[in-house]
């Protein structure tokens, strides 16, 4: 089992009021799965994704990914863990505007011990997978939304992470570009055996996944 979530609870504090977002969630994900997390706004799906990414910590419960318990790790330990294990795809791409596509993809590799030449090879491989080698010198403003998201995917996979997490990856794209991105994610899952967890509102997007889970009011419900 790649991911083991047991009895995970997350509560946010707004002023003096405690707002429960996840309520004792338990979830198992096998390696190589393409899981879609669905649910209405405020159901806790993005919070769950953040917990899996190690950018937030649960109030209670256990999160074990690839054998490592990440709940309770220090901020510094989590940063290192994220760099090694997680590739994150944002809804709004979140590329660094002053960096070219190549440099954006290279960014996570700056934290590794790879040489410049090795970094270049990795980046070009990632860009080749997403079909954007010819756009490597372009800045984000010179790319379409779909191309930006593909660069963001290349950035997410360049370190060959254990887990790919995507938060509404097609939410800001037109239908055609959205389909292309979903096809790319499917390919990463099928061809490169990447474990992918994708948050989405879109049932058509969820259909591309190998497994779908529904969250409502912080707990999993049957579809």
């Amino acid at each position, binding site marked *: 089992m790649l991911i083991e979530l047991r009895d995970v609870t997350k509560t946010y504090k707004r002023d003096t009021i405690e707002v429960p977002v996840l309520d004792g969630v338990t979830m198992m994900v096998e390696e190589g799965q393409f899981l879609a997390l669905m649910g209405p706004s405020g159901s806790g799906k*993005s919070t769950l994704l*953040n917990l899996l*990414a190690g*950018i*937030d910590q649960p109030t209670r419960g256990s999160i074990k990914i690839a054998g490592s318990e990440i709940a309770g790790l220090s*901020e*510094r330990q989590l*940063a*290192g*863990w*994220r*760099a*090694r294990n*997680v590739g*994150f795809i*944002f*809804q*709004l791409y*979140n590329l*660094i*505007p*002053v*960096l070219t596509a190549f*440099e954006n993809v290279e*960014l*996570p590799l*700056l*934290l590794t011990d790879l040489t*410049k030449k090795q970094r270049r090879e990795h980046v070009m491989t990632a860009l080749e997978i997403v079909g954007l080698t010819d756009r490597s010198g372009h800045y984000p403003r010179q790319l379409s939304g779909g191309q930006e998201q593909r660069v963001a995917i290349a*950035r997410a996979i360049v370190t060959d992470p254990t887990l790919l997490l995507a938060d509404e990856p097609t939410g800001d794209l037109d239908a055609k570009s959205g389909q292309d991105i979903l096809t790319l994610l499917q390919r990463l899952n099928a061809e490169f055996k990447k474990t992918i967890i994708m948050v989405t509102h879109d049932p058509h997007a969820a259909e591309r996944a190998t497994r779908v889970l529904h969250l409502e009011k912080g707990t999993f419900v049957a579809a």
Partner: protein
Amino acid sequence: MKFLSLILKSARRSKRRTALTALSVAVAVFLFSSLRAVLDGFNAGAAGSSSTRIITIRSTSLIFAMPSSHTNVIRGVDGVQDLSWANWFGGIYKDPQNFFAQFAVDAESYLRMYPEVLLSPDEKQAFLDDRTGAIVGDGLARTYGFKVGDRIVLQVGIPIYGSQDFTFTVRGIYKAGGTAVDNQSMLFHWKYADERAIEKGQIGWFVLQINDPERAAAIAADIDQKFTNTPYETKTNTEQQFMASFASMFGNLNLLLGSIAFAVVVTTLFVAANTMAMSVRERTTEIAVMRTLGFPSQVIFFFIAGEGLLISVLGGLIGAGLAMLIVNGERLGVTGGFVPAFGVSTTNALIGVGISAGIGVVAGLVPATLAARLKIVDALRRVA
């Protein structure tokens, strides 16, 4: 090293803002270096002064003259080997803005007592032989294009010299052989000025050569004692003290210039800090993304602080470079001979660059800390 290009790219994000911030630091460092140069000029004059020369002025102030009859009395004081005198002339060359120092001196004794005034033997002799002759420093000559043989007409600036213009012939161009002498002044014969003076035989200050520097205080006391309770009491000091008191005529320069420099630096610090804070605020999402990718807080801190440091040091280098270029360019002749050895030293320029680095570090400290402590989820939620 691999993060340096990232910092450079980030600094170029808003070229105008980066340029303006660097420019504000450059102005601060330029002012700092220039003001320090003025202070250094005064201090260098005092530091480079001779220990065997002492100066006698009126006890009331340097601006009041003494009768030339003091000469014989002073010569008679035990320990005084040689003596010369000079007056401040204060003439106007074409326009009051063309300010430079002119001294009416007893030429022969003055050149004897100031070997730092470097002249060729021919020029020296030509000067001594010509009652209306003058010598000018090479810096002054460069400023106004004076050459040997040129005529210089000075309007009278101080009414005690009458109202008729003085015409001089440049007989030599001297170099300053020490910091006690500057190269921005004009020297001419005291007799020529005295001829036209409404009250004859007035001397601004005496320069005395003494045989034993250890006895300087005793000799000074002896001289002043001679004139006690006369209408022209004197105050005798070492050349170093004289230079220092000359500087003090302008007030407490250290405090004044130091305060200006401090105010400029602090203001620039606030400008730079505000700019860095704005820059970080605009990049909240980017920082959150970098943290998500696994960049540790420490790297984010140095990334932001490094950017502030880079911009600030760039400004510092520009400011110090401009200060050296402009202030050290003698063509400006900005001091008019008031301050010997006026110029921005390498040390001053380096201190200026150091201050700019300090501004960069302090200005970047708070934004860098905030960026490093940023909660990723909160920052991402702000734009989601």
